[in-house]
């Protein structure tokens, strides 16, 4: 019989007591040492950062504070959704920039979602040419940097439009506005006296629709009877306001632009910078959304379709009641991420002079006031807030939609 030497050693070891281990192999000591060290380094880092900044600022005889936000900005911006003039404060500049960011982000998100869903579904089409075209659409768009797309649209494609003095749209006499290198000068809607009634009706319609649909659902659960919810809702949201709009005597007119010395005047100008940025942002993002949608639909097992067909559901309800609810669960989280990306990417507008947050606040205002630290802090905090709000929403949605496994 051979002696199990290892065993003997192990026995020896046990008698001697536990072997000394290196201190960093003791998990408790290690973790507290690491954490204390980290806190120390962090505090020292933050402290030296602040003291360096303070020293540098005082060496340049600058102070730190947000009082400058009340000072008049002195410059003008090309697009503003709120009252703005050169006498407005830097705080107003911030608001103008933020609103312009939100404007391009929200319209971009709507467009990108519409295009993205269509392309994503087209990718899965049995129609060879449609699916191929959708494939190349996605591959062409997402493999070229967004900034290059913005340049291509702004300095390339838009430049192919006619000059301001001979814009497109003259044949219609400006009924649809004028399109030229100076942008789209659209007819400006002017609200009449009684327009608020129509607006009120829309609000009423929306609220009523919610009530009707929840009532209809309850009734169906109870009695199994279906209610033509869709038609009622359409009637409430579109029919009622439309009727009221006509009854009150069409209280909406348009102010049409006219061709002046420097191109179209009056009306509602849509900046070419806005058009270029919006186009680039939405088609670029739509390529990513298309891929998300495709993956989401593919993730649903084919058996789901077959099973619902076997249950006697027609293709329409199959899609509505079985496939889409499940696919959405996969699609929504990455989709929200894309929305957030689009919002952050709108900051690239700084390259083409669209007056959004980074461009006029972190750009022009920073320069005219010389308050780098404060302005960059505010800008970053704004984007962080947007992104935290989005992820909070996403977590809420995920929890709501999560499969409850029994």
């Amino acid at each position, binding site marked *: 019989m051979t002696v199990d030497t290892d065993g003997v050693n192990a026995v020896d070891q046990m008698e001697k007591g536990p072997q000394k281990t290196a201190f960093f192999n003791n998990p408790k000591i290690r973790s507290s040492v690491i954490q204390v060290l980290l806190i120390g380094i962090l505090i020292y880092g933050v402290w030296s950062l602040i003291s360096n900044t303070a020293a540098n600022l005082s060496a340049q005889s600058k102070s730190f504070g947000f009082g400058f936000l009340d000072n008049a900005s002195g410059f003008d911006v090309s697009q503003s959704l709120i009252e703005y003039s*050169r006498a407005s404060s830097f705080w107003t500049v911030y608001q103008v920039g933020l609103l312009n960011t939100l404007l391009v982000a929200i319209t971009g998100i709507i467009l990108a979602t519409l295009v993205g869903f269509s392309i994503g579904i087209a990718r899965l089409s049995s129609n060879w040419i449609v699916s191929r075209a959708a494939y190349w659409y996605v591959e062409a768009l997402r493999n070229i940097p967004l900034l290059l797309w913005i340049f291509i649209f702004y300095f390339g494609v838009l430049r192919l439009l006619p000059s*301001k003095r001979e814009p497109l749209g003259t044949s219609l006499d400006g009924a649809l506005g004028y399109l030229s290198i100076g942008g789209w000068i659209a007819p400006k809607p002017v609200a009449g006296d009684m327009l608020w009634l129509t607006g009120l009706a829309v609000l009423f319609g929306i609220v009523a629709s919610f009530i009707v649909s929840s009532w209809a659902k309850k009734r169906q659960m109870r009695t199994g009877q279906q209610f033509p919810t869709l038609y009622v809702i359409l009637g409430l949201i579109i029919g009622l306001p439309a009727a009221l709009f006509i009854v009150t005597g069409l209280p909406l007119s348009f102010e049409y632009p006219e061709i*002046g010395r420097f191109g179209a005047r009056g009306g509602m100008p849509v900046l070419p910078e806005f058009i270029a940025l919006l186009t680039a942002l939405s088609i670029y993002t739509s390529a990513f959304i298309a891929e998300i949608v495709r993956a989401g639909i593919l993730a649903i097992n084919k058996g789901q379709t077959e099973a619902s067909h076997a249950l006697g559901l027609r293709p329409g309800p199959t899609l509505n009641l079985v496939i889409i609810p499940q696919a959405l669960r996969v699609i929504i989280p990455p989709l929200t991420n894309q929305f957030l990306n689009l919002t952050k990417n709108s900051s690239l507008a700084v390259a083409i002079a669209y007056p959004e947050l980074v461009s006029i606040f972190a750009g022009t205002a920073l320069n005219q006031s010389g308050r780098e630290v404060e302005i960059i802090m505010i800008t970053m905090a704004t984007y962080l807030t947007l992104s935290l709000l989005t992820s909070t929403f996403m977590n809420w949605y995920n929890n709501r939609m999560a499969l409850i496994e029994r």
Partner: protein
Amino acid sequence: MKAKLLSAAFGAALSVTAVNASAATLDDVKSKGFIQCGVSQGLPGFSQPDSSGNWSGLDVDVCRAVAAAVFGDAGKVKYTPLSAKERFTALSSGEIDILSRNTTWTATRDTQLGLNFAGVNYYDGQGFMVRKELGVSSALELSGASVCTQTGTTTEINATDYFTVNKMEYELVAFEKNDEVVAAYDSGRCEVLTSDASQLYSLRLKLTDPNVHVVLPEIISKEPLGPVVRQGDDQWFNIVRWSFSAMVNAEELGVTSENVDEMKKSENPGIKRLLGVEGNFGEGLGIPNEWAYNIVKHVGNYGESFDKHVGPETSLGIARGVNALWSKGGVMYAPPIR
């Protein structure tokens, strides 16, 4: 980068304060052996690199003059191209030693940004450029036009003021870079390009067809352009101020880069003081006594520099105008070296 990169990397990573105590700019410049000069990103006549990266221009000559004064060698300058937006931060952070980038001297900049203007090397004013085919002869006819300009400049503010005061409608499109302004104007996005008049001539050269554009007669602002240094270093400030003044004084005294060696033998006490034959002006500045001689010898006097880079013989073709010496009807006036 060579000198400090590594210590800087460690310094940043571990936040160790004070890698080298805040030295006076002159000592710093002497120890690294060159002057870091902030210039534009390319403005013909003022600061523009050629295809092999050598910078030249009226603004560049100020930096070269300081290098000649400090080192006796006008070539000991390194250039940092800066956008209008970055320029002051670059200076106050110490990235550059002098900012010589067609920068307007204003009260705000002088008092609130921790900067000092060391003089004026070009008296400018803001103007407008339009296409000839518009048939506009005065800036007052521009109501309703789109105006392209560069962001972060006094130009942006002046244009706003001008159009508001004259109760004209306008649309201001402000770009980050001059090249973008030119591209936008060239394509017809804007009817008007506004900038300092000198720049308009310079930018016009970048247009597809420079001949179909015209600079309007109105000058709507005062734009004294000059070199800038950090506040709180009087010695360096003096060196820059007097390096430039020496160029103007040299022109006034008729000293040029051609005749400077002969002029050393001149009997004129003013010239003697300028060229360091008499007096110890270099000592007071902390630089060699031949400082002004070196400037004139290697860079030339102000007139030479002007003619070479922006004058009537160049493609810019700017007349001396208000930038002529005070004795010739202009406002270029340097304090005497005495």
